[in-house]
């Protein structure tokens, strides 16, 4: 499990909607730091947070989060 990396498109989705990290953080009730660590892949969010992020962007979790397969 350690070899897998969780990629995400949060930054892209935010840019499309002209949304700041603070806006997204506010909408899902987490700190901006948490959004930043999720975005940079340092923190793997729970299913609830992942679902809430997808809900804000009106899309599916799979389109936001992808697992990068090990080489």
């Amino acid at each position, binding site marked *: 499990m350690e070899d897998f990396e969780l990629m995400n498109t949060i930054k892209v989705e935010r840019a499309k909607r002209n949304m700041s990290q603070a806006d997204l953080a506010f909408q899902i009730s987490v700190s901006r730091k948490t959004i930043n*660590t999720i975005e940079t892949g340092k923190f793997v969010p729970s299913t609830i947070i992942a679902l809430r992020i997808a809900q804000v962007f009106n899309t599916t979790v799979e389109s936001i989060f992808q697992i990068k397969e090990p080489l």
Partner: protein
Amino acid sequence: MEDIEETQMLAERWEGDRIKWIKWMLLGFMLWDGARISEKYLFPGQYEFVLAPMIAIGTIIWMVGMLKLSQLSKLLKKNKQLNIILNDEMIVLHRLKAFTTGFYALVATQVLIQFISYSHPFSSILAADISIFVGVVSAGVAFIVYHR
């Protein structure tokens, strides 16, 4: 929009304050307990002119830190949304990891003390004092490091 920015700004300010007071509290605890352990076991009756002020200063810093943290926690209880933001899952995870680090540091200290006690007599109170010191300091430092 202003509300979002205001809430996030307040959250970041309070988060900064929380870390700041945890650092001060930890420093106070280290000064107070470190000097107390040294005065009681390492240099009994010696260096009192240095150790006694260290104990006093440490106690004051520790108490101020505790007071500020409890004030912050009271403020958070009044603001439900900020309370949720400042206790989100990442912070809860860091807290859990810090407690785990503290626990393992405490167990390692106990094992070390047990080994030392085979060759050098070790009082049980000193063992407890050292274990508490190591446990609290390592948990506190671990939280600060994880939450950088």
